[in-house]
């Protein structure tokens, strides 16, 4: 079985790594894949809460690594999806409780059981980050279209490359179409031009993400959530399906539709990306 270990990272904190991990993992499990989500943020565990599994934790990643329990004992089964599991982070330890060799071994172990192992990396570029990428086949970088986040993403790209990993792919999160239209926010094409990596997904800013996190149910379950649908699309791209990158153009305003009909106004994002990368 060729399983894939994917690490979700960003450098900067608060850009949506944990949300992305929860949603991509859930979406892949909805597609019938066997998925393990690993919370790599030791000391600041959160993935459990985003998935609504915070009350079920008995053992954690550090317990497994230290041999206090078996891997199967620490894996928590999802509430809804029978093929989705969480390996929670330890909350009372710090990120130096685990080393790179242990983490790589853990990934090898998880590979035996799962189609996808998705690791939620902590913010920063220290040991926790290095642990998160050491066993990964693929890296996904989450960034927001603002300077600090893109700058950190660039730094991460360099570190991933230095670690001998393949070129990471980008999920651009929290885009605000209206701000982009006004020129107040960097466009998808702008960020791609600066970073020079491939795009895996475009996630619009969406209040449904906060609602979903409050409920402990990832937004991919919510068909009306634009962000949820965008995460679903990104998951489809991970398993090799071609889904057009038109997440920002889903519901154009009436005025916009008229403009497009007449042939004025900005081209849809997808076209701009295409023309830029060619």
């Amino acid at each position, binding site marked *: 079985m060729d399983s894939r270990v994917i690490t979700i990272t960003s450098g900067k904190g608060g850009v949506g790594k944990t949300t992305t991990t929860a949603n991509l993992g859930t979406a892949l499990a909805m597609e019938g894949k066997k998925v393990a989500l690993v919370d790599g943020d030791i000391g600041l565990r959160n993935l459990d809460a985003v998935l609504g599994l915070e009350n079920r934790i008995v053992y954690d990643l550090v317990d497994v690594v230290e041999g206090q329990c078996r891997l199967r004992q620490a894996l928590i089964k999802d509430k809804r999806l029978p093929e989705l599991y969480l390996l929670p982070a330890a909350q009372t330890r710090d990120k130096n409780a685990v080393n790179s060799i242990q983490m790589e071994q853990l990934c090898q172990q998880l590979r035996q059981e799962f189609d996808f192992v998705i690791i939620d990396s902590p913010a920063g570029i220290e040991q926790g980050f290095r642990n998160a990428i050491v066993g990964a086949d693929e890296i996904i970088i989450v960034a927001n279209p*603002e300077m600090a986040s893109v700058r950190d993403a660039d730094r991460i790209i360099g570190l991933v490359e230095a670690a001998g990993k393949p070129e990471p792919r980008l999920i651009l999160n929290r885009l605000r179409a209206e701000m982009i239209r006004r020129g107040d926010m960097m466009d998808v094409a*702008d960020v791609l031009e600066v970073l020079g990596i491939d795009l895996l997904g475009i996630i619009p800013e969406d209040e449904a993400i906060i609602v979903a996190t409050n409920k402990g149910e990832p937004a991919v379950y919510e068909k009306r959530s634009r962000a949820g649908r965008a995460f679903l699309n990104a998951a489809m791209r991970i398993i090799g399906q071609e889904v057009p990158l038109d997440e920002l153009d889903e519901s154009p305003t009436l005025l916009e539709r008229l403009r497009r009909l007449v042939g004025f106004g900005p081209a849809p994002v997808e076209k701009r990306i295409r023309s830029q990368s060619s």
Partner: protein
Amino acid sequence: MGVFEFRVGRKKPTPGELAKERLKVVLVHDRLKLNPELLEVIKKELVSVVSRRLDIDEDQMQVSLAHEGGTDNLRTSIPIKRQKVKFEWDPPSHTPSTELRGKIHIEENDE
């Protein structure tokens, strides 16, 4: 400042464009681990080389880093002090000659 590339006559850059241009500059520095002091050293060395041949305006000279067309570039702008260069042909230009004989007049502009 001249660091950002917005053509003259174009309207003010939008905050989005500004962010992109600022990012490009900061990333070139980050990637090359090049700090402003080192850039100043490069500038000084350029001045010493170029000024051997040309009378340049060191105060107006600019050295900056930019990411354009997929590569990181060191961009310099070195204004030459205003001089008029005139070349008088001797013999007249219609006479074929393998040798160039003439006088170059360099006049300082009285500005």
